[in-house]
C-alpha cells in the first residue's frame, strides 16, 4: 500500500506536549516560543517500498513516523494510505503495524499471547477462532524463528529476540503499513547487523510497505530503497542510498552521511593557501573558502605532488578492516584529518605514528555555491 503525505506539519506549544512528551526533543525554536517540530513535508512512498527516515536526534523523524502511525496528530496536511485518507483516522483503525525502540512487549503475557494480542483484541464478530489464531501465531513465530519460545515471558528473552517478537506482533494483523521506530537502536552491534539482514529478507518475502526511523547512516543506507534525510524538522534530501552518497543535495547531507575532512584557506589564482599548505583548485573564485573531502579521497605520499603541497604528520593508525584508518595532523589544520588508505599503500609507505607525509586530495567538494560542486580529478597519479 502506498503512503502519500502532503503538507504535513507540526508545531508544539509550550505546554501541549503532555506529561509524557516522548518522541521528539530539541527542534528549532520559532519566535513566539513555540517549537516547530516539522516544516510542511511532502512524501510519496510507493507500494512495497522500504524507506528510511534518517537524521540526528531532534530532527523530527520520530515525530513524522508517529504522525503517520496516528500516535500524534499533525497540525495540517493530509495522509493517504493508497486511496484511503487516514488523516483523522484513529491509530487503532489505521491498520498499521508499529515496532517500538524498546519493544514495548506486554511483560505479563507469554510470547504467544503477545503475538496473539492483536487477533484476540478484535471484536467478537471478526475474531478468528482460537484454532485459527493458534495457527497464525505459530506461523508468525516460525517466521521470526522463535517457535520454541512461545510459552516464555519477554523477560526471559534477549533484546534481539524481544524485538523479533515485537515484529511478529506487529505483523499479526497483516497491516497495510509497517512502521519501525529505531527498531535496532537498543541492540548491540552484532545482533543489529543480523536483524537488519533478516528484516531485509522479510521485506523481500512479504513485500510490506515500510517506514523506519534511524539515526545510524549505515543502517539507513543498507536497508532502505530510498532514504529521507531530515534535520531540524525539514527534509534535506530524498534519494536512493547511492545517489545520496554520491550526489548529496547539500552540506548537511554530505556531512551526515560519513566522515568529513575540512580544508579552509584563501584562494588566489586557483590556488588555495593555508599556512605552508597549498593545493590547486581549478575553477574556484578568489576569496576565503571552505572545501570538504571524504577520508578515502585523500592519498598519501612521501613527496608533495605537483598540484598539492599538504604536509601532514601521522598521529594515529588503525590497521583493522579492509582499509587502514590514519589520523593526520598539521599546524595548518584546525582539526585533524582522517584518511583511509589501502593496506598496500600502508606497507609501501611504512607508515608509523609521527611519520611526515604529504596528502593529495583526489576530490574536493564545495557547498557554498547554489549547487554542490566537486573538483576532480585533482591528483596526478
Amino acid at each position: 500500500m502506498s503512503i502519500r503525505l502532503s503538507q504535513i506539519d507540526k508545531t508544539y506549544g509550550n505546554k501541549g506536549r503532555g506529561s509524557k512528551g516522548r518522541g521528539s526533543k530539541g527542534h528549532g525554536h520559532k519566535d513566539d516560543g513555540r517549537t516547530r517540530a516539522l516544516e510542511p513535508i511532502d512524501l510519496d512512498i510507493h507500494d512495497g517500498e522500504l524507506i528510511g527516515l534518517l537524521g540526528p536526534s531532534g530532527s523530527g523523524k520520530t515525530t513524522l513516523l508517529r504522525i503517520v502511525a496516528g500516535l500524534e496528530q499533525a497540525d495540517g496536511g493530509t495522509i493517504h494510505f493508497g486511496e484511503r485518507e487516514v488523516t483523522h483516522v484513529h491509530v487503532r483503525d489505521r491498520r498499521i503495524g508499529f515496532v517500538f525502540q524498546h519493544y514495548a512487549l506486554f511483560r505479563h503475557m507469554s510470547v504467544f499471547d503477545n503475538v496473539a494480542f492483536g487477533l484476540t483484541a478484535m471484536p467478537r464478530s471478526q475474531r478468528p477462532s482460537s484454532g485459527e489464531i493458534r495457527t497464525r501465531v505459530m506461523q508468525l513465530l516460525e517466521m521470526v524463528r522463535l517457535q520454541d519460545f512461545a510459552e516464555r515471558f519477554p523477560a526471559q528473552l534477549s533484546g534481539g529476540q524481544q524485538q523479533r517478537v515485537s515484529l511478529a506482533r506487529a505483523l499479526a494483523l497483516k497491516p497495510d503499513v509497517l512502521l519501525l521506530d529505531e527498531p535496532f537502536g537498543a541492540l548491540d552491534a552484532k545482533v543489529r547487523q543480523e536483524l537488519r539482514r533478516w528484516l531485509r529478507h522479510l521485506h523481500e518475502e512479504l513485500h510490506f510497505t515500510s517506514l523506519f526511523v534511524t539515526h545510524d547512516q549505515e543502517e539507513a543506507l543498507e536497508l532502505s530503497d530510498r532514504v529521507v534525510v531530515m534535520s531540524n524538522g525539514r527534509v534535506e534530501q530524498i534519494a536512493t542510498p547511492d545517489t545520496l552518497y554520491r550526489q548529496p543535495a547539500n552540506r548537511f547531507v554530505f556531512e551526515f552521511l560519513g566522515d568529513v575532512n575540512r580544508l579552509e584557506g584563501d584562494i588566489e589564482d586557483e590556488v588555495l593557501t593555508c599556512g605552508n599548505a597549498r593545493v590547486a583548485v581549478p575553477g574556484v573564485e578568489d576569496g576565503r573558502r571552505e572545501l570538504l573531502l571524504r577520508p578515502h579521497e585523500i592519498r598519501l605520499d612521501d613527496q608533495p605532488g605537483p598540484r598539492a603541497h599538504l604536509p601532514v604528520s601521522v598521529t594515529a593508525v588503525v590497521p583493522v578492516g579492509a582499509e587502514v584508518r590514519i589520523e593526520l595532523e598539521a599546524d595548518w589544520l584546525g582539526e585533524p584529518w582522517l584518511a583511509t588508505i589501502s593496506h598496500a599503500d600502508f606497507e609501501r609507505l611504512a607508515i608509523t605514528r609521527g611519520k611526515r607525509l604529504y596528502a593529495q586530495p583526489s576530490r574536493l567538494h564545495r557547498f557554498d555555491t547554489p549547487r554542490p560542486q566537486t573538483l576532480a580529478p585533482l591528483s596526478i597519479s
Partner: protein
Amino acid sequence: MIAQALTRRRERRVLPGFGLSLGVSLTFVSLVLLLPLTSLVGQLSQLSWSQYWFLITDPRLLASYTVTLLAAAVAALFNAVFGLLMAWVLVRYEFPGKRLVDALMDLPFALPTAVAGITLATLYSSNGWIGRLLEPLGISVSYTWIGIALAMAFTSIPFVVRTVQPVLEDLPAEVDEAAMTLGASDGLAFRRVILPYLWPALVTGTGLAFVRSLGEFGAVIFIAGGKPYETEITSLMIFVKLQEYDYAGASAVASIVLATSLALLLAINLWQGRFIKRLHGGRG
C-alpha cells in the same frame, strides 16, 4: 597466614557500616516492636487454653469480628476502585490544582484519626450536612456498618493511592500505544494491558488498606455508636475490656487482631514475591 585471613575477612563486604547499622536496627526493632509484643504474650500466659478459647469465642466478640471483617472488606474494595481512579487521575492528566490534590491524598495519614471520626460522625449524623440529605432516602450512615466502612475507607485510602501511583508513573506510554496500534479499544487496553501491570501494586495497596482497617479505632468509634452485636468493632472490644481492667481478656482479643494482620501481611508479601518472580521469568 594471619594477614591473609584478615584481608580475606575484610573483603567479604564492600558496603561499609553493616555491623553498626544492623545492630542499631535490631535494637530499635526489639524496643519498639518486640518488647510490647512480649508483654502481650506475658499477659496471655496468665490464661489457660480453655479460658483463652472461651474469651475469644464470646458471642458478642464473634459478632464484632463479622462487623469488622465485613466493614474492612467493603472499605478495602471501595478504596481499590477509588484509589486506582485517584492514582490514575494524578498520574495521567494535567489539571490546575493537581499538586494540591496530590498533597490532600496524604491528609488521612496526617489527620488524627479521632478528628476524622468526629468530623465524619457530625457530617453523617441525621442532622449533619450529608446525613440530612440521606435521611429521606432511608439511608443512615452514622451508627451503622456503612459508617464504619466509611471511616475505615477514609483512613486507609492513601495506602492504595500511594502504592499504585509510582507503578503507574513507571508504566511506559509505549505499552498502551502498542495496544492501540494493535487495534485494542481503550477498555480492552486497560483491562488486558494496564491493569495487569498495576495488579501487584493494587493488590498490595488494597491488602494494606484492609489490614489497616481491621485495626482502626479512633476514626471508627465516633461514627460506629458501639451497639453490642451490631456496630461494635473488635478494636473497640479491646478498649472495653481494658476499661474493665480485664487485661488478660484484652490481650486475648488483641492477639486475634494481631495474628490476623500478620498472616495477611505475610500472605501479601509472599504472593507479591511470586508474582514478580513470574514477570522476571523465574529469575528472581
